């Protein structure tokens, strides 16, 4: 088995909330990203995907479980953590917010190099800008973020991450605030980076179409757990979990199956339901399941989905 570039084992992250029960943002997650692999982490707001991303980057301390980088646990000391920064980098959603409006493109991209005191700054910055498609790079050095379009800003943000030569890139909603015609370019860029640099990429998104476009594997997250995982073709063409099925049915398209519109809001991580966490909204349960199975749905919690090559889902009804 190849060592994953980045992995999570039994990861749990909880946040205290006033004096109520804590919010279980990440409630037991096993995830593996192999070298050169693109994994899409899909879910709705509040499911914990952003928290998971930040924990994988070391920006958030987990309450339980481990983050493994190239097989080794994530360091805890500040200096070692700083060295880790060079291996895993992040690209945020909002490119306008992600770049300091007072810094030029050059300064934003060079920031990482300056923090880690890497020399050859100028050549590396130019190289990174060229690699993300901003050519000729010299023309962009003196510009400010507000003089760039959304797509260009996102490229600058990616350049800023690439300049440290990471092995893993975590992209949190990389194109959701960009125009549709521009987002394709950015996604194509990510694919190219995977081909040219062997970069592993974890893309966090609520857009299933994006996963279909570029991801090798997809993991669907609900209320802090990964409830379905597997190769993209299998999961999206033949979903096993009722939640995934419902999500796919509401993706707007012309010829579609009758949409399964779930009622209610994505639930509160401070009140995780007993048994299967999806059971209060599960259309399968509502439409009637065998008594023994239904009882398990309501009472028996499901184990954390282990990492494996095949397509798996956490559902009692799967037998």
């Amino acid at each position, binding site marked *: 088995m190849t060592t994953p570039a980045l992995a999570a084992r039994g990861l749990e992250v909880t946040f205290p909330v006033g004096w109520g029960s804590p919010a279980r943002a990440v409630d037991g997650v096993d995830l593996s990203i192999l070298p050169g692999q693109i994994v899409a982490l899909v879910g709705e707001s509040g499911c914990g995907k952003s928290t998971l991303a930040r924990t994988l*980057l070391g*920006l958030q301390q987990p309450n339980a479980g481990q983050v493994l980088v190239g097989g080794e646990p994530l360091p805890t000391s*500040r200096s070692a*953590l*700083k060295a880790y*920064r*060079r291996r895993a*980098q*992040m690209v*945020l*959603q*909002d490119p306008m*917010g*992600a*770049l*300091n*409006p*007072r810094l*030029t493109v*050059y300064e934003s991209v060079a*920031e*990482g190099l300056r*923090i*880690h005191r890497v020399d050859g*700054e*100028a*050549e590396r*910055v*130019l190289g990174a800008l060229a690699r993300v498609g901003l050519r000729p790079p*010299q*023309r962009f*050095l*003196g*510009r*400010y973020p*507000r*003089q*760039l*379009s959304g797509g260009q800003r996102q490229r600058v*943000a990616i350049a*800023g991450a690439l300049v*440290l030569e990471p092995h893993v890139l975590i992209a949190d909603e990389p194109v959701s605030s960009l125009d549709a015609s521009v987002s394709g370019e950015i996604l194509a860029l990510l694919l190219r980076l995977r081909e040219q640099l062997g970069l592993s990429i974890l893309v966090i998104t609520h857009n299933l179409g994006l996963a279909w476009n570029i991801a090798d594997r997809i993991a669907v997250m609900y209320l802090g757990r990964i409830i379905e995982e597997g190769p993209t073709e299998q999961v999206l063409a033949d979903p096993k979990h009722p939640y995934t099925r419902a999500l796919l049915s509401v993706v707007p398209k012309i010829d579609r199956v009758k949409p399964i519109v779930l009622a209610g809001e994505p639930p509160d991580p401070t009140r995780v339901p007993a048994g299967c966490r999806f059971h209060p909204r599960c259309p399968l349960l509502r439409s009637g399941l065998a008594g023994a199975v239904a009882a398990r749905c309501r009472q028996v919690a499901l184990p954390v989905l282990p990492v494996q090559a095949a397509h798996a889902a956490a559902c009692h009804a799967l037998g």
Partner: protein
Amino acid sequence: MGMRGPLPGPIADDPGLALATDEIVMVGPAPSIRSMARARRRAIRRRVWQEFRRSRSGMVGMVALILFGAVAILAPVLFPEDTLAVTKATGGLMSPPSPGYPLGTDESGRSILALIVWGARASLVVGLTATMMSMVIGTVVGVMAGHFTGWAGVVLNRFLDWFLVIPFIPLAIVLATVLGASLLNIIIVIGVTSWPGTARLVRAQTLSVSARPYLERARALGGGDLHQMTRHVLPNVMPIVLANTTLMVALAILSETTLSFLGLGDPLRPSWGAILDGAFTNGAMTVGAWWYVLPPGLCVVAVVLAFTLIGRALEAIVDPRQQEVR
């Protein structure tokens, strides 16, 4: 030339600037980047000045300030220092304005005008130095209080809140009494009592900046607290602080006047507050010696107003402007 992106922000981000830098020929990346940065800063200063010139009230304030400053600097030339000595006073006692004494005399026969001119020095020096002190302390504490969470943050914030709550006058009086009456001590007193105002403003601005994604990006890149505070928070906080500084100077001058009026100022140096104190204790009001009371008061008002006008004009430049006209 057209509008690019969202509505223009502060003058510093003027697109006109970058269009010029595009034309800079790149000889080699490193040196021209630095010179580009320098050229940009120069151009920014030029822009700010041009915008400032357009504000009439700001210009009025500036002219008034230059006048007062000139008078303060030229004080020894206008009125040699010995004219302040009580023993050398030659005018009548509390006499109204007359040819040799345009603003009349005080109870010892000294020219009020000479006292006012010399008093300008004390007021301006104290105002400016105390403000600088308060700005430095306030910015440092404010940035740290806004940035740090956890134990350090709690301690800093409580510290700041405590200081915010203490009323100024009693604290100033206590400090001035304890430290003794001298110009330096007055500066210290005012600096120590007025930094919380700046700190509160800085803290609020820091909190809003800390919420922005580029701070998190800095952390993701490996930047520590110092890097985040100096590279990202401080540059974003400084414009507001600088615009606020002029207003703080006005307040400092008022504070100095108040303390001198209360008799806590340096007894050896004339200051407008001390003149007012003298007028008060010598019953100038009852005798009708308006030349003793009005001039120092009016000077304080004028200088405070000048700083306020400049401060407001600067604030208007720093805040994003609406550029819809016609």
